[in-house]
């Protein structure tokens, strides 16, 4: 008995003295990374197709031009920030503006570093299908929305007009907007972009009226032409208090972010991802192939890469 105790204490001491260092939670890559001796990069993908396009093209070039293996993980933006800071993913290619996260991780903790502009400017707004705007030209001003509320009624909207919102991961002030602008509308959350797109296509097929939260750049505009509804103009800081918002959404130049360690030591992959910069049209072209023609993202990326060498050659230099 005594001997066993001594052995136990001994091994404990040994453990604490040698192997038992601190387990750093910020240095834990995905277990699937760097398998089989290949250099690998882990990219986070967000649920919308635009983000898939960025990742698809980056992945294709990393794999075929630079010889990396790429893992992708689907994560929403805010958890992606968290994952970036912990090194679970190496890069986030399309961020729509999260000042809190930026302050916490980039400024204070310095675990994430900026990767520069994506080159695409994002804008959120309320949209109606263009066929409806042609029928009722004045529908595109928020002041006239109440007049048309009955057009937008659905089983879910409880007697009011339905304003369809999307995934819970999106930046939205719509509930406050409806309240503060005194609109006779009910915000119905589709719950995911996929659900929202499916529903919009169904409405469009039957030329039914609908009012939706939507954003550009977005490939769906080419399939379902939509017109933006004017909201009270955006002014710097008018959306500071979430409860009192009564203005439109800003135009946001979308940003890339990299894990700080990866940015320093990531070699050609990190340099490439920092230089990655393309236009809205480029992104839409790939998105349309993925979402509408149902191409595998890698096939879509290949098609785009083959036809736009001038754009991406710059990223590799």
């Amino acid at each position, binding site marked *: 008995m005594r001997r066993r105790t001594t052995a136990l204490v001994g091994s404990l001491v040994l453990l604490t003295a040698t192997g038992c260092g601190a387990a750093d939670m910020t240095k834990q890559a995905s277990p699937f990374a760097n398998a089989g001796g290949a250099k690998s990069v882990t990219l986070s993908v967000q649920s919308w197709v635009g983000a898939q396009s960025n990742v698809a093209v980056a992945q294709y070039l990393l794999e075929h031009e630079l010889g990396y293996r790429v893992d992708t993980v689907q994560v929403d933006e805010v958890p992606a920030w968290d994952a970036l800071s912990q090194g679970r993913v190496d890069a986030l290619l399309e961020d729509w503006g999260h000042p809190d996260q930026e302050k916490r991780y980039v400024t204070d903790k310095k675990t994430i570093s900026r990767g520069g502009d994506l080159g695409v400017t994002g804008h959120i707004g309320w949209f109606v299908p263009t066929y409806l705007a042609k029928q009722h030209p004045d529908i595109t001003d928020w002041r006239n929305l109440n007049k048309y509320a009955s057009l937008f009624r659905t089983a*879910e909207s409880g007697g009011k007009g339905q304003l369809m919102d999307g*995934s819970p991961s999106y930046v939205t002030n719509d509930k406050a907007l409806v309240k503060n602008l005194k609109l006779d509308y009910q915000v119905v959350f589709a719950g995911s972009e996929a*659900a929202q797109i499916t529903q919009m296509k169904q409405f469009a097929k039957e030329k039914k009226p609908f009012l939706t939260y939507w954003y550009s750049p977005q490939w769906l505009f080419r399939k379902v032409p939509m017109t933006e509804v004017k909201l009270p103009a955006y002014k710097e800081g008018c959306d500071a208090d979430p409860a009192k918002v009564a203005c439109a959404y800003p135009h946001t130049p979308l940003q890339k972010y990299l894990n700080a360690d990866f940015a320093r030591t990531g070699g050609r992959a990190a340099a490439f991802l920092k230089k990655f910069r393309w236009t809205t049209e480029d992104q839409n072209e790939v998105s349309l192939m993925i979402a509408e023609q149902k191409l595998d993202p890698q096939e879509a990326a290949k098609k785009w890469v083959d036809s736009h060498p001038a754009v991406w050659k710059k990223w590799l230099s």
Partner: protein
Amino acid sequence: MATLSIPALRTGTPRVLRSRAAGKLLLLALAAAVLAPWAAAHWPGATWPHQLTVHLDKPLATASDWVIDNRDSHPLFLYFFGYISNAVILAVRGVYLTLLAAGWAGVTALSALTAWRLGGVRLAAGTAAAFLACGVLGMWVPTMQTLALMVVAVLASVLVGALLGLAAGLSDRLDRALRPVLDTMQVLPAFAYLLPVVLVFGIGVPAAVLATVVYAAPPMARLTALGLRGADPEVLEAVESLGATRRQRLLTARIPLARKELLLGLNQTIMMALSMAVIAAVIGAGGLGDRVYQALASVDVGAALAAGIPIVLLAVVLDRVTAAAGDGVTRTRTIGWPYALAVTVAVALATRLLGALDWPAGWSLDLAEPVNRAVDWMTAHLYSGVPVIGGTADWAGHFTTWVLDPVRDGLQWLPWWSVLLLVAALAWLIGTWRTALTAVLAMAAIGVLGVWEPSLDTLSQVLAAVAVTLVLGFATGIAAARSDRVERALRPVLDVFQTMPQFVYLIPVVALFGVGRAPAVAAAVVYALPAVVRITAQGLRQVDQAALESARSLGATGRQQLWQVQLPLARRSLLLAVNQGVVLVLAVVIIGGLVGGGALGYDVAFGLAQGDLATGLVAGAAIVCLGLMLDRVTQPTDRRAKKGA
């Protein structure tokens, strides 16, 4: 998939039962007469009174900030969670690298040989075909990632479960203490507790594995305890008389005697871990689940199915192989383990030398396109404008207006104390005063958390979905019980529906029913139906043949036999079917937050997506309470069955 033990029928004398029920109701009515006017006078209005809520937003936000700020420096993380996390990552990585090193041929060979050893030639052929199919679908690497995750998660669950089960099996007091804990773990919908795990461990594999362990360990614990307790006392006595010590008795007699239960526990644990593999994709677990989830983002049902099928195949193979191991029939004329390993190594080395470790790029089949065409056709032709019966969108609209809205409005119109009373009455009638108390406390906790209204919204969806599930499930179950041919035809369909990840259903239901609560209900019905059908059919088939025979001899028609003999005698199984239906429906209705179901499911998704602990955790807790309440309200007194049966 699993075998199910339905407790022996006990036919109580109805009159006694009825009078006891009346007594309970009378007591409750008395309590209501005293308490209700007082409650109504103090806190008028239908919703839960404001004064009785506790706001957790502030403390939860503080806690979440604390964790994020201290995650890199606090000893609790550096020396405890960090190690767990590292260990999980190392283990998963080790398994993954081994699988990759074996190559597709090696993995297929090893699994086929294992199946051969445990279950015979047919099983081996099936297993090999299943693995090859994963490759043909272009899902080899994700399948290996999921497999690596599964191996570690299952081992951890088995370890945790076996330890808990050992404790519960050997000590009565621990058994009593553990039972409510295990009950609760099994009722919790997994979607509800992803957020706290993510907060501590971050996105990715460690969080996914730990969430899976919480979900998958209970059946192992339960069955281990059951096996240890069920050991033949005579054998034990004999061993004892031989002078064996307590430990020897355990190792040489009790554990070997419990082999069947242990293997059934393993089987159950594997099934539950697999179903979790997909939900865990929401928190970045990678693998097949992630493919399903990514396919959803681009509204690509075909691709989602291509990633879902390997999950079904894995589930079927693992189920059959562990079931075969559990049969315990040692087969002659199969190969031994050393040979199996040797053959595997040889195959792996051969492919390595040939440089064909990765799945050959050309050998794949595009399933996505035809499936998408089929879905497009469905939505184009069924969505609206079908003559006479109307399109699916119209049905969904009617269902929402005529069923979901009235139920929700009715529930929200009821004064809060009457909801509590109703819950108490239902739970007490079907169970004991303890279950009634748990149910009422769970419901009250929802009010205290301040999410009374969304919870009743979710509850209304659950009730509507359960009603539809039961009508369809009982009808199909009866048909399956009365005809062997129907049952045989149904079995593979049920297998597929039960193991196909819930996420795969989400886009087709939106395409058919639009955005809203109706598609959430539809997805829940599809998911919960197989369990209800199975339990109903099994319950009806187990009805005492003598009773049926005597009814027949009295000249009862088929319909009379069914209504007056079979159904009443199968009452317990039917109740169990209701219970399982409720638990499964709740799990999916919540995921329905992703297709416009709103209410608690949306809040959980919101919490996960925005890292908002206050919203997500409170909604998650409310779901857990709702699950507990529903389970207790529908729980026959001495139920001992497992979730996902």
